[in-house]
């Protein structure tokens, strides 16, 4: 399978020795939906900035559809489009103007552009809005317009930078449906950044979890969860969670991948039955205030890797 995005030892260090991205490498195959998951400050947007040539890498290399983003930025930009985290629109212009300008700048033939704009606006439910100034659009309508705009040029690589941030739950759900639909219909490679676990799990073929500028895990959502086994036990203690965790490790119930955040201890149950685990906890002399047994989530994966609560950090 062709590689659409190649990233090799990419580094970005800002003034004051602020190391935003630290030596990351990954490949994204053509047609794949790849997620960068992490809290604010993890380096996701800086990575997207380097791939879209709006942030200069300090070192390393990256290519989009074979075009080096440093040596051939125009070519790299010509095969990609971005949907930004914030609204990036001219409020005084109509939706149609936005699509038309994008088509012209990305050198889509005028006859072709007309057809694409008509089809995209129909698909994304924008047909009745196109001749209104964008300043009159709702948040969801504006976001759909930005997605349509990014698709007018039929990019080989589409960047979606936190596409659902700031949207109300209903609009967010609609937008996730829309992106999931696009994923099934397009051959475009999508790189999605998010700090929403459900979004990453639903949309992405593979995920890279970023933490403090590094990729700390990279795999399919299923494989990442599978590392924690079939089930986990989560218990809350009143105090001294570290001591309680040590005791559970000594008993053999908790392995190296068990972790404590605050007063909550999470124990992956690789070889243990959950009823046996619960009994073992009671036998260990710990008096938990609550015990829950459940399937592992990406949140657990993230917690294990970083020791931070993803949705709290974001």
């Amino acid at each position, binding site marked *: 399978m062709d590689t659409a995005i190649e990233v090799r030892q990419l580094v970005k260090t800002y003034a004051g020795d602020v190391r935003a991205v630290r030596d990351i490498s990954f490949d994204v195959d053509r047609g794949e939906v790849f997620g960068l998951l992490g809290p604010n400050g993890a380096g996701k947007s800086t990575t997207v900035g380097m791939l879209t040539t709006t942030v200069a890498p300090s070192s390393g290399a990256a290519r989009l559809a*074979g075009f080096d983003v440093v040596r051939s930025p125009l070519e790299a930009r010509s095969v990609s489009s971005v949907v*930004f985290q914030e609204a*990036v629109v001219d409020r005084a212009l109509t939706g149609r103007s936005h699509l038309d300008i994008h088509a012209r700048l990305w050198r889509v033939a005028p006859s072709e552009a007309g057809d694409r704009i008509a089809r995209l606006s129909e698909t994304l439910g924008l047909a009745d809005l196109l001749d209104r100034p964008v300043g009159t659009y709702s948040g969801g309508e504006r976001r759909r317009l930005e997605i349509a705009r990014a698709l007018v040029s039929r990019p080989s690589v589409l960047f979606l930078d936190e596409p659902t941030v700031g949207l109300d739950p209903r609009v967010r759900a609609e937008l996730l449906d829309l992106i999931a639909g696009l994923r099934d219909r397009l051959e475009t490679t999508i790189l999605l950044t998010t700090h929403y676990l459900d979004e990453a799990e639903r949309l992405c073929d593979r995920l890279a979890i970023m933490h403090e500028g590094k990729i700390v895990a990279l795999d399919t959502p299923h494989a990442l969860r599978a590392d924690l086994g079939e089930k986990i036990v989560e218990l809350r203690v009143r105090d001294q969670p570290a001591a309680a965790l040590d005791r559970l490790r000594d008993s053999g119930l908790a392995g190296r991948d068990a972790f404590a955040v605050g007063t909550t201890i999470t124990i992956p149950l690789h070889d243990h039955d959950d009823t046996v685990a619960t009994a073992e906890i009671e036998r260990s002399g710990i008096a938990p205030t609550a015990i829950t047994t459940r399937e592992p989530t990406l949140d657990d994966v993230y917690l294990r890797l970083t020791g931070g609560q993803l949705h709290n950090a974001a």
Partner: protein
Amino acid sequence: MTTRTLDLGRPLPSLPRNPFSPLATLARRRLHLTVRTPRELLVPMLTPILFALVIAPALKEALHTSSSYEAYVATGTIGLLIPLNTMFAGLSVLVERESGAQRELLAAPVPRPLLVLGNLIVAFGVTALQIGVLIGVARARGIHFDVAGPGVLWFLGGAALFTVGMYGAAESLAARVPSAEEYISRVPAIAIVPWFLAGSLFPITALPTFLTWFARFLPLTHALALVRYGLLNDPSGLHNIWRMHSVTEMAALSMLVVGAFAAALTAAGIRLFTRGAVG
């Protein structure tokens, strides 16, 4: 900080393109935004028209000067209109960076200097229109201009190059300051203070000697001297700067000064914009 790149070992496909073909698209976009914001067209004209139509006749009346003083001030107001208009245009670039579609343009497969040039084309056109309106209104008010054949070229060249230079200054400022508030706070120092010193309302020789010397170095002084030479057939502004005999030589030297100003500020504007665009 040094940038190191790794060779990933693939040949780079060539992408034939005419780098200027998107310029029309960028200029058209900026024009659409400008005409949808009438304040960008009207506000910069208010003060100059007020000067040309109200203050100049009032000064003539109060100071018992000749009718040519009205024409002197009317042409002098061009030196206020150009900086005000171009600074307003620069403000819209800053607003576009904060809450407009600038990032989309930065992600486009377009050489980034063209983003500046697209805006410049529209700022230039709007300024030309406003100068035309100002001159038309002044003539309707009875102010007489003495345009003699090729002399108008000195006016057109001086005004055009000064407009280009001031737009470069506006782009440079927009790229350097973080907010619209800071931008606006610097506009008076850039657009208005020089106007009082550049021979707009009185000859620069009426200033204290050190300020006369200072005024000789202001591009606006040279631009206004060219404008007056072209529109009023009055070379006194050029004489006050150069103190030479040949009017054509003096005009050519002032044109060189304004041209150098335009080239330097345009280059600075493009450089600061493109550098600021990449983190």
